[in-house]
């Protein structure tokens, strides 16, 4: 009894963790299903058909390709823009600092449906056609703030003395930045880029406001399919994404540990 009491927090934590992970287990299990009807909600029979033919559902791989393309371009652009802002905030004093912080915070504190619909009104007024470009603009917009937060957190932990030391040793500002500051901030930048990619790849609400019939992203495909029956391939892609994310994060941590050891 005392043992249970002592580990109460651990039990609660494990229960919550199970709650968070159960859907991923279900997704993985149902990727091996051979559903009876059109809905993949009940497990019928084990099958690897969807794994061997991941593009078997019409339009799924086109939408996946578009989402990957948008995700890469949007996250790279947002990472560059966001990292620049984070360095300005973390390394310089300037006027308009609190206004900048507010402008960075606002997109994170605005419901997606408001951001998506307001962008739609802007594009309507300017005559910007909906589609891939509109989606990219939107994704870069909502990713920038998250990159700023991730990179800023890292920059704040860096010792400015290291940069001063580089300068004292005769490095010019560009060399200092490229050889000292950037490598030290790299984990934060990588985290920001990964976060931006996942936000972009996963977004449905804002994307839907700015998409055209010829620009169906993967979440839009899933949403459309949810009404008429989700193909098993969707669960395969969901499982692969989960495993890739695990791989990415674990690799990142291993690299981080190795770097630490080198510092030592």
């Amino acid at each position, binding site marked *: 009894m005392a043992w249970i009491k002592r580990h109460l927090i651990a039990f609660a934590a494990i229960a919550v963790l199970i709650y968070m992970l159960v859907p991923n287990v279900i997704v993985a299990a149902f990727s091996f299903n051979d559903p009876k009807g059109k809905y993949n909600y009940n497990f019928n029979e084990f099958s690897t058909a969807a794994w061997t033919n991941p593009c078997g559902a019409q339009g799924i791989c086109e939408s996946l390709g578009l989402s990957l393309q948008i995700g890469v371009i949007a996250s790279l652009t947002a990472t560059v823009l966001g990292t620049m802002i984070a360095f300005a905030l973390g390394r310089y004093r300037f006027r308009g600092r609190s206004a900048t912080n507010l402008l960075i915070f606002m997109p994170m504190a605005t419901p997606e449906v408001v951001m998506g619909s307001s962008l739609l009104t802007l594009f309507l007024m300017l005559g910007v056609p909906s589609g891939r470009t509109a989606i990219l603009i939107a994704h870069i917009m909502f990713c920038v703030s998250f990159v700023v937060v991730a990179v800023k957190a890292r920059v704040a932990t860096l010792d400015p003395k290291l940069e001063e030391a580089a300068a004292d040793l005769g490095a010019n500002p560009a060399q200092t930045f490229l050889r000292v500051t950037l490598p030290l901030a790299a984990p934060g930048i990588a985290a920001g880029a990964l976060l931006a990619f996942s936000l972009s790849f996963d977004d*449905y609400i804002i994307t839907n406001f700015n998409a055209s019939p010829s620009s169906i992203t993967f979440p839009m495909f899933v949403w459309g399919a949810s009404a008429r029956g989700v193909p098993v391939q969707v669960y395969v892609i969901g499982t692969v994404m989960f495993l890739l994310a695990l791989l990415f994060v674990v690799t990142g941590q291993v690299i981080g540990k190795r770097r630490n050891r080198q510092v030592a």
Partner: protein
Amino acid sequence: MAEGSVLSTGSSAPPSRRRRNWVPYALLLPGLLWLVVFFVLPMVTLGSQSLQEGNVDDGYTFTGNVGIYADALRQYWPQYLRSFLYAGTATVLALLLGYPLAYFIAQKAGRYKNLVLVLVIAPFFTSFLIRTLAWRTILSDDWFVTTWAQKLHITDLLQAVGLTSNDSLLNSKFAVIMGLTYNFLPFMILPLYTSLERLDPRLIEAAGDLYASPWQTFRKVTWPLSLPGVVAGTLLTFIPAAGDFINARLLGNTQTTMIGSVIDSQFLRVLDYPLAAALSFILLILIVGIVSVYVRRAGTEELL
């Protein structure tokens, strides 16, 4: 030497470099310009769109028709109310569930810390539409979750408090709130974890040494010190949950429509742009209002 001891001496206040004053502005310019043009300006066009009259085919003219806001509120106040109630409930639940987990990771997990942290973040990378669809399986009538809930009379209890309307769990208020809690839980846990990790365990020991009960220690030491994380986590959960309509559509029924769903369909299916823009603008104003009252309240509480 550990990385922390080398790098943690950096103070949070940025050093002044007055010599090259244009540099920060050059760094800020492209990103902030992007946000001004594609985030701030759209808010203006959204407001403007709501005050125009016309239709999609003939175009719109600005008439300053403020009455549209009264119409929008009169017609859709139940959806606003419902959205805030669901989001508020989900936020409280996420706090109750997220706090023990965040505390465990920050203070108790030891060498499993990184592993648990990865397990919290990793689900986030699978499309949340797919994960929400998985809940349709978990809560479906044929599965053991529903059968057990029926045997243990949990379904009766949920029905009694009005969270479900029959013996099923799916397609109900319960399912929608459960889904919202699930989907935004990582947004609660990460800020909580960040502030609980900074909590010095010696403070908790000290409270125990001074004969504080575990509850008193929590109430007087842990909770006040974790407040910044609580405020950030509740905001990051409540705001997206209030505007969300994916959970309401995939896990709910016609009686659980949230305001995001109305805005979405008014814009994209009914094509009534002025009404849709007004609905969206009202949501923005209400959120900003709720958030600023909340932040002010939380701020004073922190000072006490």
